[in-house]
């Protein structure tokens, strides 16, 4: 009952398929439009919004500049508060740690919340190999999991599903995962929600171990923070005996004062709400209250690689609000799956290559090109990540990675073309000659395969009889 992003085709291929998915297109257009407008309204209410963005970016930059120091402080405070701290260099290490904790308590199931980072490392699949079932408890994540599906949005992972499908999924799949759905279930949203509630309630009460992510980790106190809308997160974080939180190392913020900035930036940017409904914080173990065994797994898994990237490191400021997804004209049309990662959209187009490195697989190398560089993402990012600039820099890295080696045929053709272009634009005389060729060629161009993607849906302008350059020379700039 799990799907995986592994082996996804490069972005253009995945996008082509997604563009034909009428329901996805319909749901995306509606959802992104709605959230976009909501965000714009509530952001406009905050007079010092730009200052707040600048402050958020500055805090993250300062923290990332001394990341080791803040992480060591976080570890120290956590240990003082009775938590166990683990360091995981990669997905395998992190999964081994979590599975080990589960096995040490002999549990065969765990409940989960804030699962993005554990999806990044494939925790559910790893636990399944050990015979441990991992149950998602966020409603949308539950739908995705029961549907043997993949999340398509950071905030609304089941954005591509409709009510009737959700009903069908509940009817067909809930029984195998716990409390079955009533056989007379309709697709009334309230009914669907209450069915999920009863199903999940049983799991919360039964589960002895929970696995969570975290939105923030406050170094000065050793406090983890989860913000969410359903309350299911709080159930997860408080009912089981053992709580394991997998936390990316970029989640650390120095102080509660710093946290305040992000708690103001996040909900408005994310759901377009002034404040998020549930903010849960916990600081190690509180005797007699909540989980009595608390683990924190601090995860690298490519983050230090991203941190080493002079231009790209700003991507680690990301607080996963999904504002960039909702304004992205590319995401709006192709949805999340096409990005082949749990991190979709503009932020995914930079985060994945930054964390994995480029030049190794075609899918990752295709992501920096999955943007028209329109800049809408940069405009709304609450921590001012200049995504277009990072994309351009990553494109250069992709090209550079293929220099010297044997590039795939398409890259070869492009590289040869670019060398020719470089030579042409190095000399206005050569350019004049090339322009005459272009004019000769526009008629022919429509017949050549190179023109196909263009002429498939667009008419091509006819080459003019004379270039501007030639006109200027012939007429002395229109004077004769």
């Amino acid at each position, binding site marked *: 009952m799990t799907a995986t992003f592994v082996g996804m085709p490069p972005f*253009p291929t995945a*996008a*082509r398929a997604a*563009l034909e998915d009428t329901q996805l297109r319909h749901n995306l257009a509606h959802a992104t439009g709605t959230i976009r407008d909501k965000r714009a309204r509530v952001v406009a209410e905050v007079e010092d919004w730009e200052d707040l963005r600048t402050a958020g970016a500055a805090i993250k930059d300062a923290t990332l500049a001394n990341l080791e120091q803040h992480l060591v402080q976080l570890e120290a405070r956590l240990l003082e508060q009775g938590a166990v701290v683990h360091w995981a260099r990669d997905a395998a290490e992190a999964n081994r740690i979590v599975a080990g904790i589960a096995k040490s308590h002999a549990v065969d199931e765990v409940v989960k919340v804030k699962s993005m980072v554990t999806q990044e490392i494939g925790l559910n699949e790893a636990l399944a190999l050990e015979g441990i079932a991992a149950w998602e408890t966020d409603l949308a994540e539950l739908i995705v999991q029961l549907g043997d599906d993949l999340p398509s949005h950071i905030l609304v992972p089941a954005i591509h599903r409709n009510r009737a499908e959700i009903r069908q999924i509940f009817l067909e799949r809930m029984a195998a995962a716990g409390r079955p759905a009533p056989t007379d279930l309709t697709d009334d949203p309230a009914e669907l929600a209450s069915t999920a509630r009863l199903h999940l309630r049983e799991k919360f009460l039964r589960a002895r171990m929970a696995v969570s992510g975290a939105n923030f980790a406050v170094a000065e106190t050793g406090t983890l923070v989860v913000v969410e809308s359903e309350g299911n997160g709080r159930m997860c974080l408080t009912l089981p005996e053992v709580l394991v939180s997998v936390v990316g190392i970029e989640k650390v913020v120095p102080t509660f004062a710093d946290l305040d900035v992000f708690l103001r930036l996040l909900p408005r940017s994310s759901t377009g709400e002034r404040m998020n409904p549930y903010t849960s914080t916990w600081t190690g173990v509180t005797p007699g209250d909540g989980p009595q065994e608390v683990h924190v797994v601090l995860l690298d898994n490519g983050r230090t690689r991203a941190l080493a990237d002079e231009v790209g490191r700003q991507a680690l400021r990301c607080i996963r609000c999904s504002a960039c997804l909702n304004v992205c*004209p*590319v995401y709006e*049309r*192709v949805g999340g799956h096409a990005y082949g990662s749990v991190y979709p959209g503009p932020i995914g187009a930079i985060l994945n290559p930054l964390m994995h490195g480029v030049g190794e697989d075609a899918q990752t190398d295709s992501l920096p*090109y*999955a*943007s*028209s*560089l*329109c*800049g*809408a993402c*940069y*405009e709304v990012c609450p921590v001012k990540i200049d995504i277009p*600039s990072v994309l*351009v820099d*990553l*494109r*250069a*890295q*992709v*090209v550079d990675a293929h220099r010297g080696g044997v590039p795939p045929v398409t890259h070869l053709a*492009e590289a040869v073309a*670019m*060398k020719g*272009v*470089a*030579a*042409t*634009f*190095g*000399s*206005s005389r050569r*350019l004049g000659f090339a322009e005459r060729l*272009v*004019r000769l060629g526009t008629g022919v161009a429509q017949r050549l395969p190179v023109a196909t*993607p*263009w002429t*498939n*849906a*667009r*008419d*091509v*302008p*006819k*080459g*003019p009889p*004379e*270039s*501007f*350059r030639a*006109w*200027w*020379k012939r007429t002395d*700039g*229109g004077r004769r």
Partner: protein
Amino acid sequence: MRVALQVTCINDALFPDTGKAMVTLLRRLGVDVEFPAGQTCCGQPMVNTGYLDEAVPALRSFVDAFGGYDAIVTPSGSCAGSARHQHQIVARRSGDAGLVAAVEKTAPRVFELTEFLVDQLGVTDVGASFPHAVTYHPTCHSLRMLGVGDRPRMLLEQVRGLRLVDLPAAEECCGFGGTFAMKNADTSIAMGSDKARHVRETGAEILVAGDNSCLMHIGGLLSRQRSGVRTMHLAEILASTEAAPPTVAPLSVEPVETRGLAL
């Protein structure tokens, strides 16, 4: 003030009328604009595709051609953005200190047409006449990279006879994005089709913008759909007067030669 026209490679080769309109317009406003013949391209096509080394020759041509000017005016928000925001990156990577120094001089002197008219010349009524219904698409780079804001609208509102119609979802990208239109052709078309649809909703005769590359994309879709809406560069509208209206040069529909064959 010595003013140079950076016509841009795409306008030079494919849209010379835009360049001519720039000359007509600027001369009418008393600017003796020059065309440095050594100019080629701003380098953006290479930079945005990831070929930064390959952009260096273009950059050298740029600083050689425009080095001596007080202002460099260009009918492209995108190329102006490239000069102001990308040239320094390319120059630094080249390791050529002379190029870095040269770019430091040229970059801040590059102005997109509407910036030059409104900020440098201080004019919004350029004496134009264009009695048609027009809608304006703010291209992403002029909107977000340069922040030209209301300048195009201020200029259009002063054009005699022109009826400016609001474009729905105006600030959404048209999907051109340079090589994006080739590398992600399907998504690019989906975006462009929506833009074309919004243009059609306005009922305007003409779509105007400050970048011919975006217009080539949207116009290509409008033409393929036989929409009866034409695209024009803002410079051509501002250059238009009652005595000298623009020559109508719609995006050509390639004639289909095999009609008449049944079924």
